């Protein structure tokens, strides 16, 4: 068995007297789609924000490819190959779809000073076009992102996280507010992106928070159930479905 891509060990975070995450440990393997489910307030977002450098955990460690990344800033994490999406739409409204994608990876091209006065597309035009086709947003590629429909913006929002070809992408409710017909489309896209990898040689890993159970069960290789800041179970979708404790606590029979 290969070494884990991400290892979270004994993560703790409290807000005053409230223990949001208390001693969470798990591993994500290269190429794995790892789901995180649990009721509201179970600590999923706090866990996400700790891994993504938005907040500093009180205790515990986070390792990426065997290197300690605990407490690094979102910027440093991005440079180390961690991509993410947010629970709500986060696109650059006044830039075109294509420019949204280019800016999503340009900071990985050379140094900041080498980019001053450099060509505007940073040599990323072809990569942006490939994602535009894959996400079927070709017809709106030159429109400003703020003028797109919610569904189109959601697709762009997800595509942006993949522009810099990260090893690990954290997706925070990729189906939130998306109509049922698009949910299947997003699932297919994520499965394709998982298999394709950045350069074809490696598989990309995802961590997905999502409340849509059909989506999670269909997409994820393994699922972690969180309840009140702790891990209740980790297992394959079949194992989670058959876990009586999980059924009682969350899935509700």
């Amino acid at each position, binding site marked *: 068995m290969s070494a884990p891509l991400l290892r979270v060990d004994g993560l703790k975070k409290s807000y005053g007297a409230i223990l949001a995450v208390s001693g969470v440990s798990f591993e994500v393997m290269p190429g794995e789609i790892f789901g995180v489910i649990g009721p509201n307030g179970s600590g999923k977002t706090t866990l996400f924000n700790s891994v993504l450098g938005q907040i500093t955990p009180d205790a515990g460690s986070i390792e990426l490819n065997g290197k300690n990344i605990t407490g690094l800033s979102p910027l440093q994490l991005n440079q180390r190959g961690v991509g993410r999406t*947010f629970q709500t739409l986060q696109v650059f409204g006044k830039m075109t779809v294509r420019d949204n994608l280019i800016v999503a990876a340009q*900071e990985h*091209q050379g140094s900041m000073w080498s980019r001053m006065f450099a060509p*505007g597309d940073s040599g990323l035009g072809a990569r942006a076009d490939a994602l535009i086709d894959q996400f079927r947003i070709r017809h709106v590629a030159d429109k400003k992102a703020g003028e797109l429909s919610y569904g189109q913006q959601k697709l762009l929002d997800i595509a942006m996280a993949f522009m810099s070809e990260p090893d690990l992408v954290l997706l925070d409710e990729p189906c939130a507010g998306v109509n049922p017909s698009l949910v299947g489309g997003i699932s297919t896209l994520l499965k394709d992106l998982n298999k394709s990898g950045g350069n074809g040689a490696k598989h990309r890993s995802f961590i997905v928070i999502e409340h849509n159970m059909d989506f999670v069960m269909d997409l994820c290789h393994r699922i972690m159930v969180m309840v009140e800041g702790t891990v209740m179970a980790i297992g394959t979708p079949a194992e989670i479905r058959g876990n009586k404790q999980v059924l009682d606590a969350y899935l509700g029979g």
Partner: protein
Amino acid sequence: MKKPQLLIGLVALVALLAGPPFLKNYGIYLISYWLVFVLANMGPNLTVGYAGQKSLGHTAFFGIGAYTVAIIMKAGFSFWLGLPVAAVGCFVIGLALGFPALRVQTIYLAFATLGFNTAVWLVMRNEEWLTGGTFGINNVARPGWFGLKLDSNLRYYYFVLGVTLLMGLLLWGLVRSPWGKAFTALRDNPIRAESLGVNIQAYTLLSFAIGAVYAGVAGALFASLVQFIEPAPFTVAASIMMYLMVVVGGPGYFFGPLLGSAVGVLLPEWLRFAQAWYLFVFGSAVVVLMLWLPDGLLSIPDRIKARRLSREASAARAAAAKSIRAAA
């Protein structure tokens, strides 16, 4: 750049090159004055318009540039020393003013920068040994260029035009480079930008520093244009006026400062017939503009385009609906 824009640009350039010799002396002076403000407003257009940092302190840099050149020339040194010193000085002070923006944003940042502007203005007014206080510094000379004196208004005009074009070209290159995209990303959504690897701290500081250089160089040209400087043109009110010019022209539109400065500098001249009513007319126009065109005058073409596109989309939808009904 698209063809009609290129054509308008060429016509404007020819007019700016060939027109002034036909103007009276005061007209030439006024156009130079306008160009100085065009150059100055490129600064806040970058800081505020492209990078979204709500700074109200740009007249301070305009003033620092003007006083730097005036003081250095009074001390017996050349304008050509004063100009780079003003530029470098403004870059450094602009960088320092950027630090508050790493902590506070929007209206709070506006107040912080307003405080900075007030402090700089107080130095200009109170430190008589350096700035001449309220009496200011008079007889600021115009520079020469390898024996060619730029004394006449016309010659100085061409000098100002040259500097404005040069710095305009540099800014054009910058906002079209990846830096321009990074500034816009910082403005539209700093949290997402950071998660995509955009060093938002560095770009925030640079947007302040580069914006300050534009205002500072314009200030240096201003000192030599009006040849007498005092604290009055660098007050907080003037800073708000500068911000207004950027907003009226179209923040984040490259040519916004051209129009905005025309509204701020040339329009008052044309509205002289209104005399006492001038401020009322001007104020009302600004209110109307903010209500209907919050993105400035240069957003008009974009609005027309957006309206046409949505009309076409509705027409396509209606046609599709008809064919679906017919098929059913």
